[in-house]
């Protein structure tokens, strides 16, 4: 059932329908009584809809909650709001996919979701308004993980393993707490927040000269993904569009970023099971795709590629053709290195059945990206809420069924191949014309407007929601990295698994700490 069907009996007035990158009047979003808001959101989720974002913004002494619902088969988004003060009955008690969002709202605004099954601080972010702490902490600024109420399994032979925030490798900080019986993991709890830099607060009041670089720094390995979500939001709010040639080059940037990360992670997965040939080759081959990005924009992570209205750099025809040939040649090497991995029986034995996330769990938690697709959940923003070049050129979506490390590795490998094909063919057939629309100063943006900007980053759905004030400045800029959904997927993957499989499982997801913590 689609969202529209789910909503038909109640009438459309309760949800404002829009689509990816379509700005609406912020006031046009229906504000429902909280019980009705809850009922509609739960109904849509039950009917197969998805909670793409849920966020608060201040409204006098109350807080206006807005839900962004995604109807993937129809390519539609639904917006609805409710006003709350102090507390409201939680969605998470019935829809686990809302758990992170409601913890975030509790932390930022001091609004308590009553009946939330896992009401704990999310990222130890200082509150955005003066209100009593929703978690009942004496000092909301107490450092982590000191006052974190860990779930504990009791029992004579049960032991606890604590890892992080400083890890053994060069990895972002996070704290992992395992409840174990011997090697067996009963439960893994993941505490994040160490990376909190205050991105959303810095974006408020923009756009300004910092905004784009900030978006590119939400998750450094997803500079193009988050940067694209940002420029798309600004373009929608200023009535600008990207030039055709720019659209193609943006797609090239986004897919090169995807391939670079997937190839690097396939190498790291090989390293985690001690299969050194692929670990070495893919570690270096990843650089071919990073360097391809640098050939376009001068930066290996695609920083400074994007600008509202287009891209900053163009390629001459022969440069584009040469780059296409290079990317194809690099992929041939990757293919060889990766087939060594998948054809090795010892590797397959370690990958198969390790860290399994069932399709039911993936759906219930609202997983996105390769983590969802590996569990048989067929969702991809490039197809479902197509934007830019993907409205004209379709990249086939790859899924697997088994939900284990092998499935996540296969999905990453197969979708990289399709991305490479896309990149090369785009570079070989770049549309004529300018790479950016005639330069206008950024802003003013439409006043009192709201836009949802979705991008399929390499980890999955990136959602940026920009709301402007009466002067056309960002009154609220909500950022959601795909990792926001998927971290709980990793925790579930470890359940009843072996603690020694944790590094392998972790790498198969390779989620963003910075993107989660903002």
């Amino acid at each position, binding site marked *: 059932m689609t969202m529209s069907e789910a909503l038909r009996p109640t009438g459309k007035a309760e949800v404002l329908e829009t689509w990816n990158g379509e700005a609406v009047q912020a006031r046009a979003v229906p504000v429902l009584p909280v019980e009705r808001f809850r009922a509609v959101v739960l109904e849509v989720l039950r009917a197969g809809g998805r909670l793409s974002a849920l966020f608060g913004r201040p409204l006098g002494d109350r807080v206006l909650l807005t839900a962004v619902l995604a109807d993937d088969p129809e390519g539609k988004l639904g917006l609805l709001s409710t006003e709350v003060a102090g507390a409201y009955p939680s969605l998470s008690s019935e829809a686990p996919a809302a758990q992170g969002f409601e913890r975030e709202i509790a932390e930022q605004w001091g609004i308590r979701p009553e009946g939330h099954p896992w009401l704990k601080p999310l990222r130890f972010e*200082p509150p955005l308004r003066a209100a009593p702490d929703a978690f009942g902490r004496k000092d909301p600024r107490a450092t982590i993980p000191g006052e974190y109420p860990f779930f504990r399994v009791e029992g004579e032979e049960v032991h606890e393993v604590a890892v992080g925030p400083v890890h053994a490798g060069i990895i972002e900080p996070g704290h992992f707490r395992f409840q174990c019986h011997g090697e067996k993991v009963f439960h893994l709890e993941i505490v994040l927040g160490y990376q909190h*830099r205050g991105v959303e607060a810095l974006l408020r009041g923009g756009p300004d000269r910092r905004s784009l670089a900030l978006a590119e*720094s*939400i998750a450094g390995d997803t500079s193009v993904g988050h940067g694209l979500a940002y420029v798309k939001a600004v373009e929608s709010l200023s009535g600008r569009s990207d030039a055709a040639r720019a659209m193609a080059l943006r797609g090239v940037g986004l897919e090169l970023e995807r391939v670079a990360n997937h190839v690097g992670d396939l190498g790291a997965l090989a390293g985690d099971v001690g299969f050194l040939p692929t670990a070495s080759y893919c570690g270096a081959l990843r650089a071919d795709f990073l360097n391809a990005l640098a050939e376009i924009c001068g930066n290996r992570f695609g920083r400074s590629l994007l600008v509202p209205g287009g891209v900053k750099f163009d390629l001459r025809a022969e440069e584009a053709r040469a780059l296409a040939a290079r990317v194809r040649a690099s992929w041939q090497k990757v293919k*060889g290195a990766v087939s060594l991995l998948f054809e090795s029986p010892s590797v397959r034995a370690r990958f198969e059945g390790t860290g399994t996330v069932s399709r039911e769990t993936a759906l219930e938690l609202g997983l996105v990206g390769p983590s969802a697709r590996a569990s048989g959940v067929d969702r991809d923003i490039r197809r479902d809420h197509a934007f830019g070049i993907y409205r004209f050129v379709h990249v086939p979506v790859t899924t697997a069924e088994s939900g284990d490390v092998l499935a996540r590795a296969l999905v990453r490998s197969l979708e990289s191949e399709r991305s490479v094909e896309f990149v090369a063919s785009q570079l070989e057939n770049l549309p004529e014309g300018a790479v950016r629309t005639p330069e206008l100063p950024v802003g003013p943006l439409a006043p009192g407007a709201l836009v949802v900007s979705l991008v399929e980053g390499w980890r999955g759905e990136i959602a940026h929601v920009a709301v402007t004030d009466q002067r056309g400045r960002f009154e609220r800029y909500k950022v959601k990295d795909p990792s926001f959904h998927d971290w709980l997927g990793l925790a579930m993957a470890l359940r009843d698994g072996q603690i020694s499989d944790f590094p392998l499982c972790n790498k198969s997801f390779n989620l963003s*700490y910075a993107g989660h913590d903002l």
Partner: protein
Amino acid sequence: MIDILKFRLGYGRQTVAFPEGPARFPGRFRGRPVVDASRCGDGCAACADACPTEAILDPGKAAMKIDLGRCLFCGDCATACPPGAVVFGNDHRLAARSREELLVSKDEPVLAAALDEKARKLFGRSLKLRQVSAAGCNGCEAELNATGNIQFDAGRFGIQFVASPRHADGIVVTGPVSENMRVALLKTYEAVPAPKLVIAVGACAISGGIFRGSPAQHDGAASALAGIPVDLYVPGCPPHPITFLDGMLRLLGRLG
């Protein structure tokens, strides 16, 4: 097994020629900026107005400087300046020993000086480092990881990232140091046996970078670790692996 060996033979040597040979970069790579205030228009501050991180000091004046510690190497200042008072070259040698040495004016680049003889004797041939990501976005972390791969292979210089601060000779800090990471960073530093080095990698760890001024962070390693000296600053957003290697080898007195 035979397939693995065949693939290996076809793959060849992957390690970059640097430092014996040339360091190669894509044509559009933005390395050390060159400042020429004589090209500035009267009272023009277009470069500074375009800069996301206030990295340009005294724009339009003879004393104009670019603070590499804040610079993201985005190139927006150069685009905003058609006369070319700011242009980006491809010189990858950016690391410096002090905050002042990161201020670029027209003069010749100040390259990182080597440690004193005693420290070089201790660390020169084997330097083990503990990396602490303190709210880095994973850009610098990814490039530091790359320094260990077969391409850049820091191990051939005896430089290696180790799992425990107890086994390390110093820490490499990335990120602006969030309040939520401050204690962990301090504890990691304290766990490293003396004498020890502190290396700040990336605009965030040097100055707070794009996050400078946010109350959730501390504007970099030097201010978060107040009173603890930083031995090497490696600019960039993120720094190229060769920029990091260059800085490290200069610090160890292994590059002329």
